[in-house]
């Protein structure tokens, strides 16, 4: 076995080796934690790596892809350098959240779930960030921006370009 795999050039197997070594006796039951760690290490879930997980753990690829596509947290495509998360919780909704999402869409020119062509931003909506006292709120990477109005969005996003 080489130290990199398949069609997605440049993918190293080292991180995967470490993940699987740190979870001795892994079975299908540990699939969610395995995928969480793979995504943390690779930034997304590269298909070739998932096939490798299947090969080494004996978990059928169909089950791995089934789980990977069921949960919102997992993504098979690379993400942008900055993740913009717009909260769509109830408190945000009644305090102007939809306008905020609209402003992000307009500023970045992409829909939720998409990444800008220059790989700078990925735009996501989340069910609720649990910071309802800041509503309406967005997160850019790990920074919170609360009590927003749609005209503040452009300035906030510019800070990350």
């Amino acid at each position, binding site marked *: 076995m080489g130290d990199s795999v398949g069609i997605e050039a440049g993918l190293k197997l080292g991180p995967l080796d470490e993940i699987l070594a740190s979870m001795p006796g892994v*079975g*299908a*039951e*540990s*699939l*969610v*934690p395995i*995928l*969480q760690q793979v995504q943390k290490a690779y930034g997304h879930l590269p298909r070739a790596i998932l096939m490798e997980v299947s090969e080494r753990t004996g*978990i059928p690829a169909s*089950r791995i892809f*089934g*789980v990977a596509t*069921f*949960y*919102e*947290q*997992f993504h098979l495509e690379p993400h942008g350098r900055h993740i913009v998360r717009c909260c*769509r*919780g*109830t*408190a945000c*909704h*009644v*305090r102007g959240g939809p*306008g905020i999402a*609209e*402003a992000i869409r*307009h500023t970045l020119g992409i829909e939720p779930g998409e990444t800008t062509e220059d790989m700078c931003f990925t735009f996501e909506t*989340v*069910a*609720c*960030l*649990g*910071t*309802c*006292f*800041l*509503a309406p*709120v967005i997160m850019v990477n790990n920074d*919170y921006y*609360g009590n927003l*109005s*749609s*005209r503040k969005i452009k300035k906030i996003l510019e800070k990350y370009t």
Partner: protein
Amino acid sequence: MIPMFDKKIESLNDIEQLRKRLHGERQSYKTRVLICMTGCRALGAQDVAAQLRKKLKSLSLDEEVALVEAGCIGICAIAPVLLIEPHGYLYGGVTPEDVDEIISTSIQQGKAVERLALIQNGKSAPCIDEIDFYKKQNRSVLENCGRIDPRRIEDAIERGEYVTAIKTLSEKEPQQVIDEVTQSGLRGRGGAGFPTGVKWGFCRKSPGGEKYLICNADEGDPGAFMDRALLEGDPHSVIEGMIIAAYAIGASRGFIYVRAEYPIAVEHINIALRQARSLGLLGKNIGGAGFDFDIEVRMGAGAFVCGEETALIASLEGKRGMPTSRPPFPAVRGYREKPTNINNVETFANVPLIIRNGADWYNQIGTEKSKGTKIFALAGKVNNTGLVEVPMGATLREIIFGIGGGIPKGRRFKAAQMGGPSGGCIPAKYLDNGIDYDSVQEIGAIMGSGGLIVMDEDTCMVDVARYFLQFVQSESCGKCTPCRVGTKKMLDILGAICEGRAKPEDIETLEQLAADVQQASLCGLGQTAPSPVLSTLANFKDEYMQHVVEKKCPAGVCKSLLRYAILEVCTGCGVCKKVCPVGAISGETKELHRIDPDVCTKCGQCFEVCRFGAVAR
């Protein structure tokens, strides 16, 4: 390991001695400054704490002033929040620039910094004891939340945590514990309200030696942050409750299934578990009482349906989080096909209180069929957003107006949404009804996990119904047809209503579909998905009809029914023209502007910025 305590706790006496010693150590500090380092981090609490630490050290005050990085203090509306003990001064909106004054005035002279205090009835109210937000609550489960550093188990033990668990393991029989919890009347705080003691009894009686205990911390309801605050601010109360529950049902392994979207909660539970383990409060032979139990943290991966217990178990087993039909209930066949007991975070946090003070004590709080207190996450159009704990039976008026300080900008209360996507909207006529599991159900909502979103006259109830349906539709796992397809059809109709394309008979179809989805869905997600629609239809039918018949949205929310225009009072200041993101506004300076309806995206920014009331919709 705690300095000065380098051996494991091997008896009840050990933990009581340790508690005494920690209590003595605490007395060596004249003042304690508590700062919320969880929710308030979002508004700069870390910078304030860093500045405080630096200044206290440079003034050599760090020996007599304890700086405690605490959990949620409750009144999130004025974040970042800081509390000074023993004076009880509560300050909000604190910045690093305020630190010098806080030290010289409050810590050194013991006086209040009035300008940082909460304004109540037109006057500043610097003391926590005089603030209505706290005075009108009954903070029992939240007693230590915001009053300890959750990352220091010493703080928790000093407040008496874990003592009840060790006492229970050493002195009580499992059945006695179950009886006590049953008699207390505690019901599941996750929302459904099933009697906790009865649930434990089922699991204990299930045959088989291998049993599991799960804490459901997959707090998915939008607008709910009670469990997050508890896990961040006092994870020990949940762990202690789990130890007692595990002993009662006979489980040796437990899980806390927590949302990955709550990184601080995950961090704090992991620290707490590590510390408890190193003190012998988890693991083999807990507290020398001969009982083995340990807990593992598992992170959710972003699926709302995993809050449903059978879906949660599927997820723990590494599968797609899809529910299965019950029976068999998890108490009979759950995780790994073994008897499993699942309770919510807040339910576990109630347990040590019940065992410590007795079922009779607990029984006195609350209403006839709903005992104890309930924590609510108060948010939306309300002044004092935050974390609130009241006895069961408190009225919405007490919570929203007494504790919450009413609606901002003097607007009118329209509805309170309880129970998230499974709940409903409670209109003003029920403001004085006492809130408990049964009374809330009677008026078309559910207690739910505790999200309480206040809505004012600017909220469109049809839009709210559509919002929740959109949520459940996208979170539906797709396993059963009524939920997967039924919610989609309902959503299509609601979309048509909001866009002015609906006919009156569509409302009937909507009601029929709602009944079908309720009756035929596999799990709680689908069975309750129509509730927000039905409750808004029951209480706000006029508003639906205005959308359908007059093609108007009285709250000014549904975009397709709005048309923005500039009135004669326009001064031509040009601000709207500047903010319009699509260049739909034209006009010379100091002349009447106009909006091109073909270009306008109805984003409402011009309406927001106009200071002359010249933009109409």
